[in-house]
């Protein structure tokens, strides 16, 4: 039977819409996913390997917008360098990069302003309505705030101001907005639970959210929304959902210094001044896992990677490597070491991933006897990796070789940017 989604954005794709005289914003778009579907009669034709996907772009396209955005607004200089003695990680994602949620809404934080567009049927664009928007529109409700971070989840969004206020909007039926109820909002609403605290970053997942808070002595991660897979890390038992933020267990002793876009990337500073490390916690914004690297240790909670058991609060895994960065997909995670080597966790689906040679490097602690499979990424001999990123089922990295980008994983929708819709099992 022919099927098409009612949620297809009708009208022109981003790559064809032009207006004379407008400033163009050139952004390398990683994966347009459903935003490129312009034809509402998108049939149920199965895309086999090598078949061109209709209308989807399989190579990066230029995003043209009709609002006046100068390129300097889109890519401002790094806003914070938390400590002068921290090792320089040159490629920490800028807070102003577009954040692509799997729900196809894009948020750009340009000089503190927020523009959203894409799917908006749950009110997640924050324009006070529940319709899709093909063009970036400013979120007027946040006009008087300087927004420093944002996150686009499946059906909801979160925004953080420079004063530490958290605003959420969109679908709230799982409590993922954190207002203490299960109602949805179509304009950003302040999460009052945190009014006397300073929220640093928000990550919105499929049906849950994780917030990073900074305090004078300690920093904390709070979770709210659906917790059925343990993705909130707030309880040792299985929980359904919570509508008010609760603290993620097992991370109370951490000092977390800063956050970056596309997940929560946390810099952990130890109290001992000579031991400054940078770690990444990348909460899986779109599914149900979370990963924290602190002090060289891997903490995992939520949906298990490659195992059938979910972990309800952070468990430390013993690993002999020091990781500096992580990126999470829906079924896999990428881990980057200080010397530029990439490892992958999970990934039995498309995320990279059919490599049969997986070395088991990580074991959970005694409480969990499951083993997470961590494998070294092939085809990268001698290539130093500077940054990793992950989509739902694909991966990307930036190499030290002239900044060459490599991608692999699920390619059906052209998201690898290689010019076709083939899957790739190793970086190309």
């Amino acid at each position, binding site marked *: 039977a022919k099927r098409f989604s*009612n949620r297809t954005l009708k009208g022109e794709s981003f790559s064809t819409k032009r207006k004379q005289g407008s400033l163009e914003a050139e952004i390398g778009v990683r994966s347009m996913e459903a*935003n490129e579907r312009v034809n509402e009669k998108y049939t149920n034709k199965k895309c086999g390997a090598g078949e061109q996907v209709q209308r989807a772009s399989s190579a990066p396209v230029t995003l043209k917008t009709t609002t006046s955005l100068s390129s300097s607004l889109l890519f401002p200089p790094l806003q914070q360098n938390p400590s002068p003695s921290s090792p320089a990680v040159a490629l920490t994602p800028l807070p102003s990069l577009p954040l692509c949620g799997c729900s196809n809404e894009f948020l750009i934080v340009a000089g503190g302003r927020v523009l959203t567009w894409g799917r908006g049927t749950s009110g997640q664009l924050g324009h006070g309505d529940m319709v899709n928007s093909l063009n970036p529109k400013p979120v007027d409700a946040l006009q008087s705030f300087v927004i420093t971070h944002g996150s686009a989840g499946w059906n909801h969004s979160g925004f953080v101001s420079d004063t530490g206020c958290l605003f959420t909007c969109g679908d709230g039926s799982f409590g993922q907005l954190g207002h203490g109820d299960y109602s949805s*909002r179509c304009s950003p609403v302040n999460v009052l639970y945190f009014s006397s605290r300073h929220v640093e970053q928000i990550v919105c997942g499929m049906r849950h959210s994780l917030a990073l808070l900074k305090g004078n002595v300690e920093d904390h991660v709070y979770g709210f929304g659906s917790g059925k897979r343990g993705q909130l890390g707030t309880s040792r038992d299985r929980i359904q959902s919570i509508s008010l933020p609760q603290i993620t267990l097992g991370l109370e002793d951490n000092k977390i210094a800063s956050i970056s876009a596309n997940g929560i990337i946390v810099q952990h500073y130890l109290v001992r001044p000579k031991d400054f490390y940078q770690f990444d916690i990348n909460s899986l914004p779109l599914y149900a896992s979370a990963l924290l690297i602190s002090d060289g240790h891997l903490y995992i909670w939520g949906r298990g990677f490659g195992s059938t058991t979910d972990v309800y609060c952070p468990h430390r895994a013993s690993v002999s490597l020091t990781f500096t960065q992580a990126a999470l997909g829906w079924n896999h995670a990428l881990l980057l070491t200080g010397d530029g080597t990439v490892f992958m966790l999970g990934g039995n689906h498309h995320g990279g991933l059919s490599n049969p040679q997986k070395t088991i490097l990580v074991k959970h602690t005694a409480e969990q006897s499951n083993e997470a499979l961590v494998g070294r990424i092939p085809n990268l001999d001698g290539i130093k990796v500077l940054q990793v990123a992950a989509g739902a089922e694909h991966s990307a990295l930036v190499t030290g070789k002239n900044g060459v980008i490599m991608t692999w994983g699920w390619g059906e929708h052209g998201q690898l940017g290689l010019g076709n819709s083939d899957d790739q099992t190793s970086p190309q």
Partner: protein
Amino acid sequence: MSYDDVVIEDMEWNNELQAFTYPCPYGDLFQITKDELKLGEEIARCPSCSLYITVIYNIEDFSGDNSKTSIEPSKQQPVAVA
């Protein structure tokens, strides 16, 4: 190969599509109708891509009259405008 196993309680009822839905990594929704469930169909497909999920449910909840179904689909929540 099935992308994931999802219990029916985790799926959301979509009135427009008249189907139970679940997010697909592509950005669309895996969908399965009540009629399909009645027939014992287990696969919820995504209209935009080759991925599909396996739906876990009790067929007794869907066979016979609809009034007997004990599945409580997610309700549409009221929207508050700030």
